[in-house]
């Protein structure tokens, strides 16, 4: 263990003494996280060209709820994924698979049928705080589709008749209402019924005017709740969303510093000196890996402590964050080993290695958030460890994921780590002096 610790300590010392590496490893990610935090807190993104996925939980099962869901799915900006239960829908949002979970309550149809007597469609939307801008658009879209249901009711004599019958019954059973007012309402309901019969089969008969004529009236009550940590009630601010990205850049800095450091050892001859020392190749590799692992942990801790003390970011689940940080550090140490094994000169490590890691960072959401990307890239992003690291850290900071929900990300990072250690270690052993 002694040589491993000695090599790790020496590498960390070298990292801190090289101001350029130290800057790109520790300070640059901090600046980047702050920058993106400012950007997110201002515009919060503008959406993307691809449809936003939302999950719908139909607890009602009634025809109005079905019609509502069908209209929502027909919208080109939205892709609906049905969820069997509220918990399932909520999980999809927490795991970033959907921007919102729309819940149509058990009495959705009853509410829709009593729109003229104080009812209305009850819609609950659980939204991802990281997708706040798109959630705002979703609220507008839900209102629009609710109006469309009302419009359909006006053109469907049977449904309108049922709604008006409900309204008449409610008025008749209201003893405090003035008989003159009751009479006035009855005349209105009769006129509405006649109007419906006259426009039957023409859904667009007065659709365009619906908004103007019904200004101030909404057929639906939409309750929007930001789905966040079970412990911390969502991201404290935009920095909580941008800092996991900053962490990804910090990890990238560590990987590059250590990968090119190993290439430097090879080209400058110090690796030869390590090879003739009374230690094994495994000692050399593990020493390098330990140094990189510690640097990864340090950069994550530095960023999160800064975000906590200066920017008011809170960590929902410190234990899960600790676990995510350790696993991410392991995964990225493996990536470092892989790059160091493949790229054997400083030039190759600095050039080709950095290009590889930048591409992985870009497709993994390290530069542009994943939801801005087209669907095929979002799928392809699974090959990037950055995606899993960002997701694991978000999950622990503000998404409020449980260990089980975090497990796939942690597993993916572990897998990257193991593959990196095995392939990188093998490549290093083949190239290194005996």
């Amino acid at each position, binding site marked *: 263990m002694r040589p491993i610790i000695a090599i790790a300590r020496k590498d960390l*010392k070298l990292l801190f003494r090289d101001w350029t590496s130290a800057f790109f490893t520790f300070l640059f990610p901090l600046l980047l996280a702050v920058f993106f935090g400012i950007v997110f807190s201002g515009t919060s993104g503008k959406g993307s060209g691809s449809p936003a996925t939302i999950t719908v939980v139909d607890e009602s099962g009634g025809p109005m709820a079905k019609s509502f869901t069908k209209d929502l799915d027909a919208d080109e900006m939205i892709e609906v994924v049905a969820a069997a239960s509220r918990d399932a829908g909520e999980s999809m949002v927490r795991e970033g698979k959907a921007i919102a979970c729309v819940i149509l309550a058990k009495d959705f149809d009853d509410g829709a049928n009593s729109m003229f007597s104080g009812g209305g469609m009850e819609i609950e939307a659980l939204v991802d705080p990281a997708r706040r801008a798109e959630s705002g658009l979703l609220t507008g879209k839900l209102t629009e589709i609710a109006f469309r249901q009302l419009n359909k009711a006006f053109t469907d004599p049977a449904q309108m008749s049922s709604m008006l019958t409900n309204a008449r019954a409610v008025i008749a059973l209201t003893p405090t209402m003035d008989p003159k007012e009751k009479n006035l309402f009855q005349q209105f309901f009769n006129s509405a019924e006649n109007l419906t019969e006259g426009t039957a089969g023409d859904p667009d008969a007065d659709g365009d005017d619906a908004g103007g004529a019904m200004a101030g009236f909404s057929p639906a009550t939409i309750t929007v709740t930001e789905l966040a940590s079970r412990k911390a009630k969502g991201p404290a601010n935009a920095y909580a969303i941008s800092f996991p990205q900053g962490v990804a850049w910090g990890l990238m800095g560590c990987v590059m510093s250590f990968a090119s450091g190993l290439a430097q050892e090879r080209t400058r001859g110090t690796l030869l*000196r390590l090879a*003739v020392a009374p230690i094994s190749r495994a000692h050399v590799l593990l020493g390098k890996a330990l140094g990189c692992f510690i640097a990864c942990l340090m950069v994550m801790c530095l960023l999160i402590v800064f975000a906590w003390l200066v920017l008011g970011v809170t960590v929902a689940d410190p234990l899960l964050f600790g676990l995510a940080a350790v696993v991410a550090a392991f995964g990225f140490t493996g990536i470092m080993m892989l790059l160091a094994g493949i790229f054997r000169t400083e030039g190759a490590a600095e050039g080709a290695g950095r290009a590889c890691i930048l591409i992985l960072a870009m497709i993994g959401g390290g530069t542009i958030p994943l939801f801005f990307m087209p669907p095929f890239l979002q799928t392809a992003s699974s090959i990037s460890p950055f995606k899993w690291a960002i997701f694991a850290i978000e999950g622990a900071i503000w998404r409020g994921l449980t260990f089980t929900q975090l497990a796939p990300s942690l597993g993916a990072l572990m897998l990257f780590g193991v593959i990196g250690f095995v392939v990188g270690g093998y490549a290093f052993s083949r190239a290194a002096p005996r």
Partner: protein
Amino acid sequence: MLRLTNLAKSFGGLKAVDDLSLEVRRGEVFGLLGPNGAGKSTTINMAMGLVTPDHGTIALDGLGAPTTPAVRRLLGFAPQALALYDQLTAEENLMFFASLYGLANGRDRARDVLDLVGLLPRAKVRVHGYSGGMQRRLNLAVALLHDPPLLLLDEPTAGVDPQSRNSILELVKDLASKGRTIVYTTHYMEEAARLCDRIGIMDRGKLLDIGSVSELIARHGGDTVVVVERGAEAERRVTTSDPLREITQALSAGDVSGVRVERPGLETVFLALTGRSLRD
């Protein structure tokens, strides 16, 4: 101390070392000379356990090849490249390597060897602030750190000023006088002649000859040249095995303004054995 027996190593179709056998005796300074591509580095790398020979055996102090930690501790290596961490101080470099060798008194040993190479006053200075000569001396100090009985010094004076070179050569002589066995490779013939008890000359993977400087000169140097100058006449060069007789004859003839004797040196031997064609 170091016995190489029938060593051979090929890289692809190239025979880098071809059936090489030699023995470096305890306490001697052994010079390994040869043009570029002669196979010196491969031989040294095999002797250090960094390259596995295709066949042949290596025995270091009767213990086999230095592939185990115990045998490696017997070796001190100063590579031709300056294998140092230039962002660390000299003391930090030495303490790092001391920890790899498991030296309990790492700081003391570091200061001892820094003192030995004349760098103690600059122990706390980062290596990137050192001159080329200081870096060479530190490179040598790392090899001495764990006090090994066998030192492999690969061109330890490459690219240094005359003062640093002299200092390094004096240090090597001093180490040899204290019983260290040293294998020394260099392109500087005067260094080899000054330091080495025996010299092996290699070319194209083979050991061409081995012996003391005088033995090699006797075998391959050829005769001495006596140069006689007479007033305005052109100088006369006489190749002879008896220079004293030639000088006596020239002086007896009179009108001699100068006599010069050109003795064959190690360079003559080297060129005689390896030829004059360029190898780069």
